[in-house]
């Protein structure tokens, strides 16, 4: 019955309608998945304090360790961060499957206090930005093997995106430890 009704309505009209609707909506194209700008993130996580901007230069040790954590080459000569007391904030990019995910990480006294997805450009796995997923990282520290000490429950079909966030969270913890071990680091 249902089948014959659909036949009468003409499937092609439905198909054409669906295609036309999407094409008409095309002028409204909006860049996918930019949820917060870097400066806004930094201002939000340190408020009301005014953080100082810092630069961590890559020496051989830092670069090698960062590459071990990420599992690939680290490009660039330095990484920028913001700091107020023993709290540092990092905005890092890491590719999930194909596209870079922009991730904000705040580390306070060696523990993760915030992980937030600032931009997500992959087609699948956007769930990773939900507060429930990000909350899993709170309190995580770095093990002796430079991995997170907490197990993170993933997303079926988007394992690579979760791995990318795990790696960036571990990397921010490592960078934080390097900043804090500088002689002029403020505790």
């Amino acid at each position, binding site marked *: 019955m249902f*089948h014959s009704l659909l036949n009468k309505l003409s499937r092609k009209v439905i198909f054409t309608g669906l295609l036309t609707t999407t094409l008409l909506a095309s002028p409204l194209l909006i860049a996918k998945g930019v949820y917060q700008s870097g400066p806004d993130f930094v201002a939000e996580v340190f408020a009301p304090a005014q953080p100082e901007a810092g630069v961590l230069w890559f020496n051989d040790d830092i670069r090698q360790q960062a590459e071990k954590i990420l599992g690939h080459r680290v490009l660039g000569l330095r990484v920028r961060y913001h700091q107020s007391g023993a709290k540092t904030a990092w905005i890092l990019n890491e*590719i999930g499957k194909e*596209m870079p995910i922009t991730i904000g990480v705040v580390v306070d006294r060696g523990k993760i206090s915030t992980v937030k997805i600032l931009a997500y450009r992959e087609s699948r796995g956007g769930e990773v930005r939900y507060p429930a*997923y990000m909350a899993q990282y709170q309190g995580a520290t770095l093990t002796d093997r430079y991995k997170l000490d907490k197990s993170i429950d993933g997303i079926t*079909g988007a394992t690579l995106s979760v791995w990318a966030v795990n790696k960036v969270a571990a990397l921010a913890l490592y960078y934080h430890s390097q900043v804090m071990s500088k002689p002029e680091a403020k505790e």
Partner: protein
Amino acid sequence: MKKQLLATVIGLSFAATTQAATPSIEEMWEIIQKQQAEISTLKNQLEQNDSRITETEIIAEATVSAVEEISLAPAASNKTHIGGYGELHYNKLEKDDGSGDKDTVDFHRFVLFTSHQFSDSIRFFSELEVEHSIAGDGQVGEVELEQAYVEWDLANNKSAKAGLFLMPVGILNETHEPDTFYGTERNAVEKNIIPATWWEAGAALSGELSPGLSYDVAAHSGLFLDSGEYKPRDGRQKVGKAKADDMAFTGRLKYTAIPGLELAASLQLQTDMRQGEGEKIGGTLFETHLAWQKNDFQLRALYAAWDFDDAINSIKAGADKQTGFYIEPSYKITDKFGVFARISEYDNTAGGVTDSAIEQYDLGVNYWLHPNVVFKIDYQNQDNSAGTGSDGINIGVGFSY
């Protein structure tokens, strides 16, 4: 720094002058004038040095930025991506009735992904596959285009696509890289009932209704059952000069608000799987699944059921209902080593009076040499009421990148 230098200069000058005989006021005035001139010269030099240091800092910053820009540019500006996966299988299976054994080695799938980002909001994705290693006239394998679509974002969390794409049904159909699932071979239920891997040509809309609740709707080409065929797997036209007289529609709702949990249900309507040839056979597919990961434990469970028009029974009795389910618990003992068990059952003539269900038990391990490289070994035992089941082992190696 400046003050220290000036003080030193003044101090030295003063010490030098006091060693001589006490000068007259005129001489003192002359000395002071000379010292003042020296101070002015030194001040000028310091200012010039300061300005040079600032200039050097600016140049250094510009150089570092330029170096970073060059070194980071390839990653950021690369709009075309290549990826892929592959899996080699060894199967050693013995038939329960002794009618024949399977003892084969097969490079089952070799796949290349190519994608291109036209702009921030428009992209293309494709998957080209060589199945069973060799294709051509009289060969066992095939070359297949499994995905080739353009996707564009209509708004945040809302996108459309058009082209050839995978059906939003089941767990494996859209995500089937070998390192993402247990078992050397894909499970028999999704293969024989859904039927994975399954792609069609058409248009689709995807989006979020609320955080954690997403939808997909698609209008696309349908299955075609040639004379004598009754299984959905036989009906895949693979978008090769496919009959497009009668279309099909698919919808899916997916709930992923809780970390580690995916609950989904899909409904598909086939308007006529005979594509206008002979008596019409319409059908609906209902599929629902759960994929739940908690720490090292994972559970996958899936149920799929086809309901076809009675006309299909004239091709094969009982084919109006075709159903299947599986339950697959697994446990990761370490980051690299996981064990699984799977109980599955499917029936392509479930509408009949006789027991035609095929049951299968699988037990095995995955060892991930790298997160994207996996070795697999499993034991499988398939039984049916006719006693023509089989059992044996499968060994595989797979990768994705």
